[in-house]
């Protein structure tokens, strides 16, 4: 009786678990396990100067890997950073034939910077000569939420070995655990439902003029018109203020300094021209984090970056403080994302000051 009970349990349990694993592995909405043909096509399309329509909910880190692997032409300028830098496009600062690519990934961490650099070194055996790094305060927060940064961990580990760094101050999660993750199962069910309704079609096209929103062939994001409702944005920020703020929650100490400095030192040693970009926060949000002791570390990060940049002769563009560049509420989509004009204005301001830079 007991033996039969155990047998029934084990068989049923493993059938259910195996079905979940097979389902998650096959649907794999974020391409965690398999490189989707779709993702390879996007990467190839981007490298053929095409634009991508309807790209959402994809594995942006894996896409960067595929883009770099499919690059035929040497890249002169790259941008590293999070979605806060996604609107940085070539036209804002380069008019010549130099090639630029924006490698932004959602919630970028230092591991992501290291991974992109490793991909250039391993795949093409060179480093772009100019690197613009959009520095978000959370890259120094070891308690930040984890994204899928570990997907490219083999590459970030490569750079870490190069920099003789033993380990990061956080531990990436094993991606195979996603096979048994209820959250990922839900995400896959949603993805499948959308796909069945045909809501998830991605187009790779040459002519952008018929489309409003797309991913440019330089990796940046183009949005024709932003629909901003400041009341809604403020309401969202008010809610955030009273709960916890993604990425900068539990941020009490500047971590990862050593790895950051070793990384920049390495780039400079390789003769790479490094530029730091600090993008402003929404004024309403900035007022709050400036006053709240839990988030005052954001300003400490800015001070640290400015000091470090000065000591190492690195240009710093922008500030987390929106008032420094007279950015009002109308320039923001939410607490941390400015519209395209924000980065455009910042770049232009420095370009006017010093025409020789980027």
């Amino acid at each position, binding site marked *: 009786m*007991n033996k039969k*009970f155990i047998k029934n*349990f084990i068989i049923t349990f493993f059938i259910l678990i195996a079905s979940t694993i097979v389902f998650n592995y096959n649907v794999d909405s974020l391409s965690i396990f398999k490189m989707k043909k779709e993702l390879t096509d996007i990467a190839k399309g981007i490298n053929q100067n095409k634009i991508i329509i309807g790209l959402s909910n994809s594995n942006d880190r894996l896409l960067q890997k595929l883009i770099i692997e499919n690059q035929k032409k040497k890249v002169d300028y790259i941008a590293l950073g999070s979605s806060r830098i996604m609107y940085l496009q070539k036209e804002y600062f380069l008019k010549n034939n130099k090639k630029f690519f924006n490698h932004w990934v959602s919630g970028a961490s230092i591991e992501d910077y290291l991974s992109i650099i490793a991909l250039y070194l391993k795949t093409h055996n060179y480093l772009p000569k100019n690197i613009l790094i959009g520095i978000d305060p959370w890259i120094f927060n070891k308690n930040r939420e984890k994204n899928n940064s570990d997907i490219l961990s083999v590459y970030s580990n490569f750079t870490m070995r190069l920099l003789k760094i033993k380990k990061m101050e956080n531990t990436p999660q094993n991606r195979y655990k996603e096979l*048994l993750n209820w*959250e990922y199962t839900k995400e896959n069910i949603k993805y499948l439902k959308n796909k069945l309704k045909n809501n998830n079609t991605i187009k790779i096209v040459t002519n952008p003029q018929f489309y409003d929103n797309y991913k440019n062939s330089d990796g940046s994001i183009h949005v024709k018109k932003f629909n901003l409702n400041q009341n809604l944005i403020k309401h969202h920020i008010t809610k955030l203020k009273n709960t916890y703020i993604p990425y900068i929650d539990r941020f009490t100490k500047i971590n990862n300094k050593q790895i950051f400095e070793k990384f920049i030192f390495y780039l400079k040693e390789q003769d790479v021209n490094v530029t730091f970009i600090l993008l402003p926060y929404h004024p309403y949000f900035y007022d709050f984090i400036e006053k709240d002791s839990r988030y005052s570390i954001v300003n400490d990060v800015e001070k640290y970056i400015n000091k470090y940049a000065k000591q190492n002769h690195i240009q710093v563009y922008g500030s987390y403080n929106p008032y420094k560049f007279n950015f009002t509420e109308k320039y923001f989509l939410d607490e941390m994302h400015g519209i395209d004009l924000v980065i455009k204005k910042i770049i232009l301001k420095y370009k006017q000051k010093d025409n020789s830079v980027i």
Partner: protein
Amino acid sequence: MLFNSVEYIFIFLPIVFFIYYYLNAKRLLNASKAFLVFASLFFYSWWNVAYLPLILISMLFNYTIGNSFSKNKKISNKSILIFSVIANLSLLGYFKYADFFIENINLVSNNNIDLLHLALPLAISFFTFQQIAYLVDSYRGETKEYDFLNYAIFVTFFPQLIAGPIVHHKEMMPQFANTRNKVKNYKNIATGLFIFSIGLFKKVIIADHFAKVANIGYQNTEILNILEAWATSLSYTFQLYFDFSGYTDMAIGAALLFNIKLPINFNSPYKALSIQDFWRRWHMTLSRFLKDYIYIPLGGNRKGNLKTYNNLMATFILGGLWHGAGWTFIFWGFLHGVALIIHRVWNILGFKMNKIIAWFITFNFINITWVFFRADNFTSAINLIKNMFNLYTIELLTKENLLMHINSKPKIFVFIFLAILLVTTLKNSNSFIDKFKPNKLYLFSFLLMFLIATLNLNKYQIFLYFNF
């Protein structure tokens, strides 16, 4: 290795289970014991292999001392016992209390001695206490002579190594020695798996969900409104119970797979009608240890009321200190000591109380004292308690800011209410050890709990008692 990890449930546990019974089936009884010790040490080292020598040295030392009581003639056994207990406590003190001691020296003497910042070796409080108990029992002549392999199993047996239950050699050794326990017992396996799945569900689904509210709340104690403050304190009260009792269920379940019955550690503690009743139901093996090796040796209740109160207070302050090196833990122990003394006086005076009122007072006392147990410091604890009774914040409540600071929704109170119902009206998991029946209802509930918990394993959190 955590009980609530994929590595443990799907790799480690099945491999150890099959190899252990394979060796037993081949009549390689010593090899199977040695394998179990090896597996347990592997389990322990998974976290940090650097601590492995520490537990090995501690085992060798205590085993040698324990054996010397019957052989030694030159030095008095009492001197050996005192020396060995001091040695054990020094080891624990060095790793667990050195910084606390230095901080207080600095505070009192206005010095600035550098802290040692030692990492606390996993399970040190548990294996130290277990071995002190063994030494005292050996000194009293209550132990038999065991070989090192048996002793090593007693200390390292992986289901209870990290966070208890704190076991006595006399309840473990005969079980390891019993040859009938070397063959697979399907009733024990089925019951063990069922109890394990209850524990896993308690930890992964209930405790970890309450943890989200408790963690945010305890980070923001100064700005909470009255509802948030109560949600925070009650969430922690249930997190701690479901976390630790979940861990214990998993330990009991895993041990049953090897035909080993661990003592129960929780007996519906939140049903308690008095603080004395609570301590008979909460972390029972620790209470047993404190009673047998501190309270009774101090004199227990044999030397008059005043001495009894002193002994109670000393026992609970030490119990508080055992949980953590901090004044908040000591204060928590002190509060429980005070409550026990009041309860004793109440009984002596012959007062009685309505059961519902008794439960209400006991539960709320426990809930409020857990605030000192959990808070990072006194300021944070006092802020939370103040806000739990700050009626002025009621006027400021709006639909939007109701539970904003804890990032929660009103349904948290539904969960808290359900948790109260669950812990006060239902039978606890221990009852299933004897009543388990391999029928369809059990199979369905077993599958459901195990499946839901397994699919939520990826966001596992460490067990709270690993820190103690």
